[in-house]
């Protein structure tokens, strides 16, 4: 706790320093050149769940509120106004009213009004939406389980009506995943040529080539953005794009694209570049098909979770930089995760040898042993970040009489396979858009959620999800979150193996850019980023 206070202080000092510095030195102009790892699936942030869309397209839009782009750690304390100028809760903490900024224009010249806010959340909840406006994919529908509707009070005021108090609702609205969409633009246009109110206007997206944006000259925040535009060049080969960054062809890498091994090359060959190796809030986790025998036996599932040596994964795959965690990202980067001393008490996280001894007993009870080994197939996506941990997992399972063979599934077919439950055991990656328990629990562990891949459903725990969601005392809530997180690991809901890290590098002339430390999805407005050239 003392650490957290210290961290907040350090962050506050950083913000003050950067703001003060910016006042003296900001220069307008120039195109920020960033490399991108692949063509974004679309420009419609609400329809995607990937940084491939968020990083380039966040600058097109505005939110009602946004996580402070100069603060590395997203939290309830770092939320700032954007299209909303102020907000207030009613006495029941179930009505959240926003006063909206006047004089804001969409990129096509139309005025921004309160009905645009209502339309956006109607699209997200699927209420009163025509076919043209309907989101083709709606990956974050589960975020709004508590939203009963959005009321318009005149042209520049809206009220979100919630079923129960939910402090985290603000965190969700502040995410890069929560832009306001225009009422008058259909979903197809939002995918292909999005219209926003943000600091940058979309110019074009050429598959496999580039995505370009130009400065919004009519931006409501006078004097901003400072850049004339942003150009994302799509470079599929990681070796080529990192070499391109080293050669100075790009000002910035794609978020988290630089691995620990590549970071050494960058530091050596481009010593003036700034690089931050931070947690991505993308966990590697085990998914077990609990409907497929023998995995319908909870003891076998538990044994599998107990044999995992998390530190070995971290050492081998991230050169010791990854983080052992539960469902929530642990401190210092995370706000809500269990610290190491608490985590060590959770079943499966303590002494590995003792855990494996317990696991062998469970396997023996289920009828398996050295002479009667269990043969399983571990399925995973055919990408290195999925395959590599799966190989280590196979080695760990051998310790408890399980012989596994790896089945790599073509990447495009992975979610279809998981949705069909056409697997026994899977190695999976889960990215969390906002470092917040509501987002993580309701999206990945709630009964019936589309992204709850294993179909885990614990009614008692579900009640606790709802309970923690309504708690306004953050410290009390954190204790309950830890309790829930520990229970999720003990239930082998989706055992988290470790949290990944990724490096983001930028040239020394890129100013006022802050690498996010607890989410890769919320830091790409680029409004006050400038080039010292």
């Amino acid at each position, binding site marked *: 706790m003392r650490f957290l206070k210290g961290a907040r202080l350090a962050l506050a000092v950083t913000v003050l320093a950067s703001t003060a510095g910016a006042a003296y030195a900001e220069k307008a102009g120039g195109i920020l050149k960033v490399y991108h790892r692949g063509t974004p699936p679309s420009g419609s942030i609400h329809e995607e769940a990937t940084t491939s869309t968020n990083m380039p397209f966040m600058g097109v839009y505005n939110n009602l509120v946004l996580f402070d782009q100069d603060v590395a750690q997203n939290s309830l304390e770092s939320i700032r106004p954007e299209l909303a100028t102020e907000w207030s809760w009613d006495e029941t903490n179930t009505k959240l009213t926003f006063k909206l900024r006047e004089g804001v224009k969409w990129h096509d010249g139309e005025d921004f009004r309160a009905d645009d806010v209502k339309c956006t959340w109607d699209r997200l909840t699927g209420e009163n939406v025509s076919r043209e406006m309907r989101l083709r994919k709606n990956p974050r529908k589960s975020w709004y389980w508590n939203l009963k509707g959005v009321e318009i009070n005149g042209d520049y005021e809206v009220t979100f009506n919630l079923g129960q108090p939910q402090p985290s609702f603000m965190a969700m609205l502040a995410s890069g995943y929560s832009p306001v969409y225009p009422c008058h633009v259909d979903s197809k246009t939002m995918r292909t040529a999005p219209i926003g109110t943000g600091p940058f206007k979309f110019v074009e997206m050429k598959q496999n080539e580039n995505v370009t944006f130009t400065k919004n000259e009519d931006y409501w925040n006078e004097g901003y953005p400072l850049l004339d535009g942003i150009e994302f060049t799509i470079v599929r080969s990681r070796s080529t794009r990192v070499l391109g960054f080293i050669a100075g*062809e790009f000002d910035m890498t794609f978020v988290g694209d630089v691995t620990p091994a590549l970071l050494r090359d960058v530091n050596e060959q481009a010593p003036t570049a700034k690089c931050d190796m931070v947690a991505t809030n993308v966990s590697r986790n085990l998914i077990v098909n609990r409907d497929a025998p023998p995995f319908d036996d909870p003891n076998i599932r538990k044994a599998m979770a107990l044999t995992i040596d998390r530190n070995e994964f971290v050492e081998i795959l991230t050169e010791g930089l990854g983080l052992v965690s539960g469902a929530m990202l642990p401190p210092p980067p995370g706000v809500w995760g269990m610290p190491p001393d608490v985590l060590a008490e959770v079943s499966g996280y303590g002494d590995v040898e003792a855990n494996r001894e317990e696991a062998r007993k469970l396997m023996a009870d289920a009828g398996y042993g050295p002479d009667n080994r269990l043969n399983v197939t571990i399925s995973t996506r055919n990408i290195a970040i999925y395959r590599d941990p799966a190989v280590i997992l196979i080695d760990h399972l051998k310790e408890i009489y399980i012989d596994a063979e790896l089945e790599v599934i073509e990447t495009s077919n992975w979610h279809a396979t998981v949705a069909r439950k056409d697997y026994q055991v899977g190695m999976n990656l889960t990215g969390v858009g906002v470092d917040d328990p509501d987002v993580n629990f309701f999206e990945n562990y709630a009964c019936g959620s589309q992204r709850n891949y294993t179909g885990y459903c614990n009614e008692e725990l579900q009640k606790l999800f709802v309970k923690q969601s309504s708690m306004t005392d953050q410290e009390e809530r954190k204790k309950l979150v830890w309790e829930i997180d520990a229970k999720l690991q003990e239930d082998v809901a989706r055992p988290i193996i470790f949290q990944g890290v990724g490096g983001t590098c930028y040239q020394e002339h890129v100013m006022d850019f802050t690498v996010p430390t607890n989410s890769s999805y919320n830091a790409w407005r680029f409004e006050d980023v400038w080039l010292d050239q």
Partner: protein
Amino acid sequence: MTSYIIRRILLMILTLFGMSVIIFALLRLVPGNIADILFDSAGFIDPQEKAYLEAELGLDQPLWKQYWDWISGLLTGDLGFSYVSELPAAEELGPRIPITAKLAGLALFFSVLFGLPLGVISAVKQNTWVDYVVRIVSLSGLSLPSFWLGLLILMAFVSYLGFIPIYTNPPETLWEELLLYSIPAAAVGFRASAIIMRLTRSSMLEVMRQDYIRTARSKGASETTINYKHALRNAVLPVTTIIGIEAAFLIGGLIVTETVFNIPGVARFLVEAIQWRDYPIVQNLVMLIAFIVVVVNLIVDLLYAVLDPRIRYS
């Protein structure tokens, strides 16, 4: 000759029809479709929304109807829409085809430019140090994968010259274009030039032992005349066949080279389109490649008659 060409054209049409059926069927046999893949970036699959999407894209239609819609569109110049970008397929393919065509043309040009003369020199200077050096170079060309060679070239440029010769913006002048495409073309053409070099060498060695070469020599013809007028003309026939085949196979090498040098051509685009199950793009592009291959084959066959007057088509 005319009747031969007409027969070949009819055969080409039949081949292209067969190709269209094969590519159409193969794409549908691969697990997953565009709806699965579009949902992949959302991290889940909603069966109801997936069904809407399939209906929107016409994937719920019977296969024969899907095939007929595609092929009838193709014949009338309507290539359909890319499932991914939702733009007309012609708009997506149009700008990329010239890029790959230029790259492939340059690669083929380099491979012939170096392969043919070095093959002749190697044969003429058989078992001398020149021959050994040329053979080592050709062996390297055969054994170095083009992606690895490409990366080595990029690393060398970054380390020694401080810049990277990759495509980030379209070249504005012919000179820029030549500079940009030369290096990847050399990287991808290296293998083809090695094959041409080795085949020219062995073919030349065989011809050099023929009686008519000895006769030419005894009549006092110069070595240049013997090598290039008499020997090469006779040795070049199998080499022409190989050049034709290599032209067709270049597309494989270009996929990796376009990826390494970040060139937005159709070769890399084809792979991405296959991964996305972007049927309109893949089907039309494969048909284009098939068309090029059959046309190149026809040209090579016709070239035989030009190069060797003994060959007559009837």
